[in-house]
């Protein structure tokens, strides 16, 4: 436990990184113990964006609390909403129509693409390359425009409701998505040329921040962080929800567990998302976009857990209900919380520059951790 900034008895230097710092993860405060430039210990201090969401949700109804989860992991806002809607539907035994299921999966995969695009741009900026940031945001704007036409907002769209989606797809949706998929496939090759094949980038990433498979499981990591260490944990494959069991896509795993593997896993996941969108975009079934539900939802007494695969890992919603219109206790199992606990273990023995690379590949979004 570090008491104060300064020098320890062994001559190690204790310094602060953050909470305000020029990377784009959010307000993460790290207290680092350094011996020269080598890291001895990294201690994250959290709570700088703790908005007491779990307590707030105890006074919100089951239709209202979904908007708040958009703001937790704002880069996968659709997927978070999806998880909450699934939990409420599980509790109330609501059957979602087929059209709504397909629309939900399409929106999820577009959100995953947008989140990975921003991750790629931000990570390249952290490591020192400023140009990919602008490339990534240009592509992200296309997805934001598609979302805005249908859902009405660019970043935090409250589109998923218990029973389906809030409104039907816009008439232009299919054409725009098809054009975007074609455009983005060629861009992924460009990303490979720009950054992946760059010798300096590879030297900064290979062999850094190694996390073994057993450690990943013990630290509770999920998502691309764990998959790069060889752990097979994609919720879309293990516990398929909506139409994922009818789709053909691969779970990407790598075995080395270093920064470069985590980077490659996410890049390849972007390609898999494009192939999922391809399989679905021409086969959207007709029908209702929302099941008929009562206006005021009351979950029966009991406990319900539902999980979805966000861009960062497994997002779980655990609702304990006493039969009223508001939940008795909600717990959001956020992926970043467990991924962050592995940071100290991963960063020991490396240099400060490597710490920035490791944090970039962990893809942390701090409001998700602090809730």
């Amino acid at each position: 436990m570090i008491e104060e900034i300064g020098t320890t008895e062994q001559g190690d230097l204790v310094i602060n990184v953050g909470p305000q710092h020029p990377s784009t993860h959010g307000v993460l405060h790290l207290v680092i113990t350094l011996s020269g430039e080598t890291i001895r210990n990294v201690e994250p201090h959290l709570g700088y964006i703790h908005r007491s969401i779990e307590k707030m949700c105890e006074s919100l109804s089951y239709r209202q609390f979904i908007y708040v989860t958009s703001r937790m992991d704002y880069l996968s806002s659709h997927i978070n909403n999806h998880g909450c809607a699934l939990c409420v539907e599980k509790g109330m035994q609501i059957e979602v129509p087929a059209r709504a299921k397909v629309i939900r999966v399409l929106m999820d995969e577009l959100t995953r693409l947008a989140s990975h695009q921003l991750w790629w741009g931000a990570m390249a900026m952290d490591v020192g390359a400023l140009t990919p940031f602008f490339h990534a945001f240009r592509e992200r704007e296309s997805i934001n425009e598609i979302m805005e036409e249908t859902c009405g907002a660019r970043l935090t769209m409250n589109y998923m409701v218990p029973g389906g989606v809030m409104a039907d797809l816009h008439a232009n949706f299919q054409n725009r998505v098809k054009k975007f998929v074609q455009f983005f496939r060629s861009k992924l090759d460009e990303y490979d040329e720009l950054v992946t094949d760059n010798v300096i980038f590879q030297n900064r990433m290979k062999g850094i921040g190694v996390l073994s498979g057993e450690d990943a499981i013990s630290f509770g990591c999920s998502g691309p962080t764990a998959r790069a260490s060889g752990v097979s944990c994609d919720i879309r494959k293990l516990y398929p929800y909506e139409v994922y069991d009818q789709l053909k896509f691969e779970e990407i795993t790598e075995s080395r567990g270093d920064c470069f593997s985590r980077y490659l896993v996410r890049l390849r996941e972007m390609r898999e998302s494009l192939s999922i969108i391809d399989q679905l975009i021409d086969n959207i079934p007709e029908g209702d976009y929302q099941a008929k539900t009562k206006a005021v939802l009351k979950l029966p007494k009991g406990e319900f857990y539902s999980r979805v695969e966000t861009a960062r890992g497994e997002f779980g919603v655990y609702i304990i209900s006493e039969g009223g219109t508001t939940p008795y206790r909600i717990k959001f199992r956020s992926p970043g919380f467990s991924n962050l606990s592995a940071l100290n273990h991963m960063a020991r023995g490396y240099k400060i520059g490597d710490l920035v690379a490791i944090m970039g590949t962990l893809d942390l979004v701090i409001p998700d951790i602090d809730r």
Partner: protein
Amino acid sequence: MDVKDVLEKNEPFPGQVHPTPGGGILVSSIDEVISWARSNSLWPLVFGTSCCAIEMMSTASAKYDWSRFGFEVARATPRQADVIIIAGTIVNKMAPVLKRLYDQMADPKYVIAMGACATSGGPFFYNTYSVVKGADHVIPVDVYVAGCPPRPEALIHALITLQEKIRNGGSTQGAVDGNGKNG
């Protein structure tokens, strides 16, 4: 320009006093040139806590470029920044950090409160034990932007409003009004 403050300070005077920036032909033209130069080259501080930070980054990138208006260089250190755009919620633990950053900035400095959370607590107004209901409880704010998150065009509108405010000589800090007092 809002003259209510001026009226309240000048109560014993008969009539109304409207200050002109600088006061006097020579000094007021120099003041205009200085205000014009200041407003066209404001450097923002990189300060984003939550979702609004993503829209701020969108404003900085190629489609809604804010460097057309002079906000080219986003500085990470408060010593070299002119304007702090508070993008995101401020919680009790973060408030002293924000105050310290604001104190470290050099005069003249300006503040934009972006988004509903920085304006008034936003969606986290009720039943939260740790959210500061509005960044103006911590530091004085010049321009408020509504939205959750505000569109990049809304943020650019706020930046242009701030530029006009500086050119007209009004600000909460740093500029001197016609009576020789800090506004």
